[in-house]
């Protein structure tokens, strides 16, 4: 009975796991996880001649939370502190787009762009998948 309950629980978790994609325009070169963090913090601006344009989803979007938890990997308060300091220094966070559809459209068209979506939202194969992760 105990094992059955455990298997049911595991099955539920697996079924509920969400897959996410880090996507980029076709011209974006290979990147490490450290470099992705630096791009979204606007510390790394280019590589191999490609100028990066990171795009976010809205501040309260669950996909953005999943991305920040996986790749930025600092507490929300620390991230707010970072951008408040950048505001004083005259730097802005990445531009936010309203939907995953908008992120895909933007990345398809704009060279150097990089963003994230849920895997289920991807219909277009004309973009590059950099990383795939689950939560």
């Amino acid at each position, binding site marked *: 009975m105990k094992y059955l309950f455990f298997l049911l629980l595991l099955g539920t978790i697996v079924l509920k796991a969400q897959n996410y994609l880090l996507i980029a325009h076709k011209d974006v070169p290979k990147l490490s996880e*450290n470099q992705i963090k630096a791009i979204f913090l606007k510390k*790394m*601006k280019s590589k191999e001649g490609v100028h990066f344009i990171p795009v976010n989803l809205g*501040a309260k979007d669950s996909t953005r939370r999943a991305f920040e938890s996986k790749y930025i990997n600092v507490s*929300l308060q620390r991230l707010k502190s970072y951008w*408040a300091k950048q*505001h004083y*220094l005259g730097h802005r966070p990445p531009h936010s787009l309203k939907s995953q559809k908008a992120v895909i459209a933007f990345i398809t068209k704009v060279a150097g762009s990089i963003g994230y979506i849920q895997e289920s939202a991807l219909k277009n194969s004309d973009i590059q998948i950099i990383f795939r992760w689950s939560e």
Partner: protein
Amino acid sequence: MFHRFFILLILCSVLSAENSYQLGEGVQIDELPIFVGGYISTDYRYKDEEHRFRVDDIALLSYGNYKALSYMAEVEFKEFYVLTQDKDSTHTEQDNKLYIERLYLDYAFSDALIGRAGKYNTPIGFWNLLPINILRDTSSNPITNELLYPKFTTGFGMEYNSFDEGEFKLDLMLQHNDSLDNDYNNYEIDAHYGLGLSYEYDSYLIKLNTGYFHKINILEDDFAYALLSGKYEDDMYKLMGEFGSQYSKEKSDFIYSGYLQGLYHFNDKHAGILRLEYLNNTDSIDDNIAVFAYTYRPLYAIALKSEYQLHSKDDSDQFIFSFSVLF
């Protein structure tokens, strides 16, 4: 006149700005690449049987960019209202002058190389780049960052930045002219040549600054300085330390100063800080300071801070409470 026009421009801009405003992030003016923000800071200090209340900073800033060109303009009322009270008397002072805190243009020659012209915060150490109360860990600055180098530079600057797995940065500071609005710079200078190197990897940052400046107020003098800074930071802890020295050509003497600071986040809103500072000077104004501080941030852009400073120097112990907001 320029100041009043600037404030009017900012107020008009804010009134027509976007609705989705979040405190501490500034606002964008319509769809233009122009942003405005500001900050205020008030504090109360009790020292040597004297109470002091200040509305210290009321500042407005604006920045933006067009292609490779960007600008920063910041004006500020400094010590706008000061009330002091001791056993015998009460004084109030007001300074209604609007100071130019920062005013510069940046030109990005490439993603890695930026040139700067104008008045800017001297990019030395950890505290001087973010010298406003709301962005600091404590209400007060470590004495190391008040004494060794000029806080503002008016002239040219250059920043070279390179990121691979870590971030390398090189800063050059060049002033060979009078300063812009020098009234509350810690040194009145007409020359400053500085160099900074820093490397950040993961949670670690190390920085080295060195330079020379020429002071023109009170006693004219030439100074050389060096500062070594190190920091570790994660979500719970921040450990940092800076140690530096300044050499006075006129007096042929050295000042040595440094501090070690630990910060612990009890949670997202509450943090406790302990800082131990050291100052040694041949003019015999040595001081050792222990700072015990507590900071509460209901939102990151709002801070209520208290601190108690214990000094080895007589009659210098003090309690400070401050309230600051970034908008």
